[in-house]
């Protein structure tokens, strides 16, 4: 699975590094000073690297926990995200990571302790309010958990800090570590869904929708809070039929009463990222969709966007109470 591991000298003896190297004992190990020597060099090709990404074990020095962009929250006043990992084992053609990073190699920041310290100071800063932390922006929170042990290392902190909530955003079925440990109420496992046909065309290397749903149901039955993320919404001529089928299926199988939150967001990419995708995947039909540029962002034309959002909102609201619904766009 991993043929090459780059190791920053500074964390070469970190216990987490040693554990990972032991797991991939056959991988070629290459020492480096800073992960940036390998990760974001010019002239790298994200598409080629996706064939066989290397793992880079590194130390994150600063900017560990950052405020989230507007419109991405699920109800709290204070919202932050952190990325213990950069890049993802999946290969979704709409993903912004392809535009943001030059490299498809996985970077794992092994100094979890420093992340937790920063999270702790923010929790203390907002001690009288609930603070939400999102972990799945620059990676899938669970997909590499058997390697990263992210769950077993981060969740104990949240167990002891009830005014902090963590969202684990995922398309993965790697839920063993969650099922193994006691449930905590301030953790939301948020599964991303697109209609099955669209997923099979665009979400390469991901578990099938049925498998994701199965994992979500299993976790919900075990007592975990489940979130549903319909983001990004992807347009195709029969999108109403496809999304209707998806919503019917998901909401009929999941326990709606126990659902933590549902969010909805449009397909949108910064122009620069989109241009990079065009170069990487010139044959990709998604990129020839009816798209327009507005203020540096590429997305569907306003009318189409509104139509899609309105349709999906109406469907979702049939199943979900208003207070559990969080649109990731400006609400008129």
């Amino acid at each position: 699975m991993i043929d090459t591991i780059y190791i920053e000298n500074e964390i070469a003896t970190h216990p987490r590094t040693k554990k990972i190297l032991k797991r991939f004992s056959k991988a070629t190990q290459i020492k480096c000073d800073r992960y940036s020597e390998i990760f974001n060099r010019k002239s790298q090709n994200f598409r080629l690297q996706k064939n066989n990404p290397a793992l880079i074990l590194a130390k994150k020095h600063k900017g560990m926990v950052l405020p989230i962009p507007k419109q991405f929250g699920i109800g709290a006043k204070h919202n932050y995200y952190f990325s213990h990992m950069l890049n993802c084992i999946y290969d979704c053609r709409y993903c912004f990571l392809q535009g943001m990073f030059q490299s498809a190699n996985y970077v794992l920041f092994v100094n979890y302790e420093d992340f937790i310290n920063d999270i702790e100071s923010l929790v203390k800063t907002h001690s009288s309010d609930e603070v939400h932390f999102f972990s799945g922006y620059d990676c899938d929170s669970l997909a590499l958990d058997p390697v990263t042990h992210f769950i077993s290392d981060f969740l104990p902190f949240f167990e002891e800090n009830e005014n902090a909530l963590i969202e684990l955003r995922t398309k993965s079925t790697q839920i063993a570590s969650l099922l193994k440990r006691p449930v905590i109420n301030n953790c939301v496992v948020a599964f991303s869904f697109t209609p099955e046909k669209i997923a099979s065309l665009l979400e390469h290397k991901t578990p099938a929708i049925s498998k994701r749903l199965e994992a979500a149901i299993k976790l919900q039955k075990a007592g975990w809070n489940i979130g549903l993320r319909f983001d990004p919404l992807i347009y195709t001529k029969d999108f109403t039929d496809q999304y209707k089928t998806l919503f019917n299926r998901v909401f009929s199988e999941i326990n709606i009463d126990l659902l933590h939150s549902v969010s909805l967001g449009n397909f949108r990419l910064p122009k620069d990222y989109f241009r990079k995708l065009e170069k990487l995947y010139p044959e990709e039909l998604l990129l020839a969709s009816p798209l327009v540029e507005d203020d540096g962002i590429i997305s569907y034309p306003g009318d189409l966007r509104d139509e899609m959002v309105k349709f999906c909102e109406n469907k979702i609201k049939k199943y979900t109470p208003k207070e559990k619904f969080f649109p990731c766009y400006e609400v008129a």
Partner: protein
Amino acid sequence: MTVHFFSALFCEAKPIIKHYDLSKLENLNTFSIYSSNEGDITLTITGIGKNNAIKAIKYHHDSMHTHKSDIWLNIGIAGHKNISVGDIRLINKITDDEDKKSWYPQIIFKSECPSIDLVSLNAPSTNYKACLYDMEASGFYQTAIQYGTIELVQSLKIISDNSRTSISKINAENVESLIKLNIDAIEKVLSELKILAKQITSEEKLPNYYELFIEKWHFTQSEKYRLKRMLAKINIRYSNENIFESTNHLGTGKLVLKELENKLTNINFSLN
């Protein structure tokens, strides 16, 4: 896609020249450059040392007009503490001994050829360590990645000397035979790189009908860029349509661009 070989010495290059039946390009004199009849394989003899390698690669790029989808291979000999003479290695880290800068060739293909790190020295050394020593790889790599795609730029080294087999025993004849013995291994790496190179669509490749449009209507530079992007998408989305024919009646380039834009924002679009 073109394959560009680089070797410091003629004796390192000779087996490759023979194997691919390359001929010297007599009009290029600053460095000796060889090419196949079809121009799909080229080879430059860089001379010894980092600075020569840097100059040779720049000259090669300028002379041969290289592309992002081209393959760049540095083939040469190197010393190591205990790896057997004649063994071949891909290089996964190159450190320049002079300024201590390092580069990390991305070996993203499965290869039977093991990989190792290498230090590029300014002068030959017999102070063998657990890495390879050569004198050109840092110059080759740092320059080639300016023109090529990192994943397609690789260095392959054949062990010529170690702590048991002295550097003094190296001569042109045995260097040539060491390289010759490894031609199959070089070919295997090359075939893996060719698979990867095919995934890169050359940015220079023009979409269908582009030249007809340029000939018929006037477009400014920025309009040409837009036209190129839009035509590429039209070709995907309306693959059965001759877009030149369907826009042929339009009077100006601006009207053509507007028409293409309308076609692309048309919501009669299916991903399936």
